[in-house]
């Protein structure tokens, strides 16, 4: 594993007597930026300063070239919403929106997270929904699981149509949305993931819903009264979905 011990006669780390203790002569002060060495393998102070300056310069140039930050959306202090553990969710066919997103387990679809933001799309397109999210710094597709929603028009499940998140991996937590275009509307499942330690868990549905409302409101959309889907879910989803119109 380590380097072998030096033979005794190689003298270890002691420098030869005549290279040891004198000031570097001025004319050896390093005329180039990298390899001006004094006897004994020492670099002159001037060379060291140049190397340090060059390193700072390269790092500074790189830092200046970094693109703008997207930052994270404010998901703090979500509106307090109670979860009714006995709530009965609407049947998927009762509304044009999705009610849950699903994961296939053992041959059947199991609901795993509630749809909590919907877009009637009377005066907007699905593309405008996704473009608004993109402009707010949500990029995709991130690293994520595949999930499905029920399409009542086609009478089959469909995988997520457009997805995005604040960060690709979510090492430190992220706002994450999945969208489906269903029956002339858009349905969104929005949540905030916990930091990956190593798996993501749900930090909040409610905070994510508020953040999505806010980013659309700032883009000129209107947030109407929420629609009740009855899809309450811990930790903090109250069974309502925000309704956002253009």
């Amino acid at each position, binding site marked *: 594993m380590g380097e072998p011990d030096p033979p005794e006669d190689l003298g270890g780390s002691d420098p030869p007597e005549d290279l040891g203790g004198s000031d570097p002569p001025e004319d050896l002060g390093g005329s180039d930026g990298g390899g001006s060495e004094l006897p004994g393998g020492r670099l002159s102070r001037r060379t*060291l300063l140049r190397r340090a300056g060059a390193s700072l310069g390269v790092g500074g140039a790189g830092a200046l070239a970094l693109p703008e930050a997207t930052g994270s959306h404010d*998901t703090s202090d979500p509106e307090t919403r109670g979860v009714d553990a006995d709530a009965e969710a609407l049947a998927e066919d009762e509304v044009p929106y999705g009610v849950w997103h699903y994961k296939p387990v053992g041959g059947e679809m199991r609901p795993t997270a509630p749809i909590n933001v919907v877009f009637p799309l009377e005066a907007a397109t699905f593309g405008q929904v996704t473009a608004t999210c993109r402009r707010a710094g949500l990029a995709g597709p*991130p690293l994520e699981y595949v999930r499905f929603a029920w399409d009542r028009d086609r009478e089959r499940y469909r995988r997520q149509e457009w997805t995005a998140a604040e960060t690709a991996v979510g090492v430190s937590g992220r706002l994450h949305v999945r969208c489906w275009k269903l029956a002339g509307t858009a349905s969104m499942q929005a949540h905030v993931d916990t930091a990956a330690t190593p798996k993501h868990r749900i930090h909040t549905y409610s905070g994510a819903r508020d953040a999505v409302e806010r980013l659309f409101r700032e883009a000129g959309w209107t947030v109407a009264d929420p629609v009740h889907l009855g899809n309450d879910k811990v930790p903090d989803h109250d069974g309502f979905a925000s309704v956002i119109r253009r």
Partner: protein
Amino acid sequence: MSGVARSPVERVLATCGRQPRRRRVGGVVLAGLTVLVLGGTWVPHLLVTGPGTWHRVETVDGVVAAAVLAVVASVGLGFVYAVWNGGPLLSFAIPVLPELVGRLSAGSWAVDQDLAVVLSAGAGAAVLAVYGTAWAERDSPRADRYGGVVDGLTVATPAVVLALGALVRLRGRTSPHVADAVGAAWILWGLTAVAATAAWVGCLRAAVGTTESPGDCESDPGSGT
């Protein structure tokens, strides 16, 4: 013996780690982590294409979870490699490259909290690798007595500045759900900056000293403070 002159190629390789075999292991680990992240990003799109493929979802979820785990693990693995084999370049790349590949696959280039975290971790690992190299080469007759540490610092310092740039870009743009991680990145960056500065000062003081042996810089890069 005061050092064996190394070719430019050897000097560059030395910034990836002291021992060739360990460099190869580090390179394989880096490649593996990167492939895992690419797999986690694209396997779901390639393997789950229609109702006939839905039975694959649980397997695909496992690949995605492994990819997330790879990125999280890479943050710590950079430090492990730095202690094990030095090499600031590879120590920096191990936490940064997988996350960078993941974000580019996701079509994201903007600075975000994850990039700031992995850049800070990468910079910390790079500077730790410089100290590890100095410690390991302390008594070795085959060590490049001065250049090893200075070459390492030349690689690690831009990483430290780059991490600062990312953290500064994020100022005022972090929500509480990521505040802990970004706060930890700031603390790590502060420690890293102090260590890097101490190493440079140690080298400079050794360079102008009149009584130190030429090996002083490597033996303790922070001795000048």
